[in-house]
């Protein structure tokens, strides 16, 4: 059986991990494969592909609009699986799917997990699936299909709960930089106390920081305290600017990565 790429990546001693989020089917319905391959070639360490949903509660305006546009383009979960399947053998970085619980419930959870494994997905981020429901209903099926469940913590999460989430995690913990929807604030300078605290908690799993990481400074700031960073809204903006897709990706990513890697 194939190994889980995310487990492998986290076992290396690589630091400053860069995880880029992109909404499936955006800007055009068949762009996702190119975005993944381009980003991979530009040095991104992993990618998180968003399943477009009509009612994305945890997302700010940028990702909401990308989601709506993708749906208008005719994007579906089934089509995403087909697209991922086609590039499966070319992708050598871990891919995560981010989606709202309704998309998965509607698809059928076991069927969904099975498909994820088939197309090479390493883990899932489902912001509205609470830990307790995951543990009582889905832990076994995730394990069966070798999928990591990536859980979120925020500055408001109590230390006890952070530890509980650490124990329930199998890959990394997603630290939300501040109490906000995605990309709603600019930068993470208010979050350093929270991230510093996490770095001193001796957690079993590495932490990646996401939400409001909009440029290289914010990325480096996140990497100072945690294993890496997740960039979503700023990337979506960069590929929305009517530039040639490959140029948009390359210009943005080189502004983040530069010579640091």
């Amino acid at each position, binding site marked *: 059986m194939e190994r889980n790429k995310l487990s492998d990546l986290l076992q290396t001693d690589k630091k400053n991990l860069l995880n880029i989020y992109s909404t499936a089917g955006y800007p055009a319905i068949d762009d996702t494969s190119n975005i993944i391959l381009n980003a991979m070639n530009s040095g991104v360490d992993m990618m998180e592909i968003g399943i477009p*949903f009509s009612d994305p509660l945890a997302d700010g305006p940028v990702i909401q609009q990308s989601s709506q546009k993708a749906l208008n383009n005719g994007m579906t979960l089934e089509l995403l699986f087909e697209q991922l399947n086609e590039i499966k053998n070319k992708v050598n970085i871990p891919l995560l799917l981010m989606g709202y619980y309704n998309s998965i419930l*509607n698809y059928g959870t076991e069927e969904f997990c099975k498909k994820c494994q088939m197309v090479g997905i390493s883990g899932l981020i489902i912001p509205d699936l609470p*830990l307790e429901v995951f543990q009582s209903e889905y832990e076994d099926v995730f394990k069966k299909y070798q999928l990591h469940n990536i859980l979120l913590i925020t500055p408001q*999460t109590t230390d006890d709960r952070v530890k509980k989430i650490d124990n329930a995690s199998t890959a990394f913990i997603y630290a939300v930089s501040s*109490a906000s*929807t995605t990309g709603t604030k600019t930068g993470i300078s208010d979050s350093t106390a929270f991230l510093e605290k996490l770095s001193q908690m001796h957690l079993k799993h590495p932490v990646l920081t996401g939400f409001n990481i909009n440029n290289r400074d914010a990325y480096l700031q996140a990497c100072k305290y945690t294993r890496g960073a997740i960039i979503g809204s700023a990337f979506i903006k960069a590929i929305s600017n009517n530039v040639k897709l490959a140029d948009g990706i390359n210009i943005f990513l080189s502004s983040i990565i530069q010579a640091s890697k």
Partner: protein
Amino acid sequence: MNFKISESGYYGEFGGSYIPELLLPNIEELKSAFKRIVESTSFQRDFSKLLKEYVGRPTPLYYARRLSAHYNTNIYLKREDLCHTGAHKINNTIGQILLAQEMNKKRIIAETGAGQHGVATATVCALMGLKCIVYMGEVDMERQAPNVKRMQMLGAEVRAVHSGTKTLKDATNEAIRDWINHPEETYYLIGSVVGPHPYPHIVSIFQSVIGDEIKKQLQQSPDYILACVGGGSNAIGAFYPFLDDETVKLIGVEAAGLGLQSGKTAATLTLGSTGVLHGSKSKLIQTEDGQVVEPYSISAGLDYPGVGPVHAFLDQCGRVEYKNATDEEALIAAGLLTRLEGIIPALESAHAFAALEKINPLADENIVVNLSGRGDKDMETYQQKLKF
């Protein structure tokens, strides 16, 4: 059968709290505050006093003589339309504003579709001197302009929602996003038996004053209770105290819009499948891909793509029978009630009256129809559709 909510917040398989981790502390805080105050005598005293002196409760249970003769049975109207602000919505906002005060929250947010819940929220915020922000879809703001003005006069800030389909479901998304962005100082005052646990339970308890009064006023169990269902707060309020009394036939009426097969409908329980929206698992009108479908009804208060989880459960176990009425049936029923009884119902409530055509009561049976709101806000629609 147990119809009450479980400790973990479920009605059978429906309900729960499907929220981002960001909101978990808020939900926990809300749960414990509700538990604490609902049993306290000071809360009960304040709640009852405001319902009596401010809202005007108990609302009458009126024997509708001419409507009864028309259907050859006995029909009683529970006059929620006579509540302050013109609908049952204020029962819940009074309860929740006391809860918000107990939790020391200074900033109140709410969603609204037709504007009735928005007005009821703006009203209690004015009463308590609290800041009020109401999210309303851009499309609904145009359709329900008079209610926007009422909210503004009451001092609320009405924020237009431009995302998604620009109606109630998007206003709810925006309110939840606001809550995520301002988790500490904000109280989210939800308007129906929807949203994450414990909201459906909280709203059911505050609205159950309707059913409690029916019980006292009729002095016997009715044979039927009829109520319209969008999210389902007035219906559960009327049904709640009668759930264990199986001699009472409970009938919820959803909006069929232009017809069940038309694609322009809000009959969630008839057409929906299991899904998660706005933090709870319930029935949902959705596409094959799991995208939420924008519902349609002539009545802005019933066009919600989901339904309260308690109704999904009561439907599944058969305790409540859910029927539906089209726009046209509702309009006819509104006209009939107006001419026979001199009462203009809200378009939402008119759907409950339309179901009188769909049951066959005996001459000596007693029917209670929950007249959840008055029709002033719908005059423009009535005038256009009934052509007078």
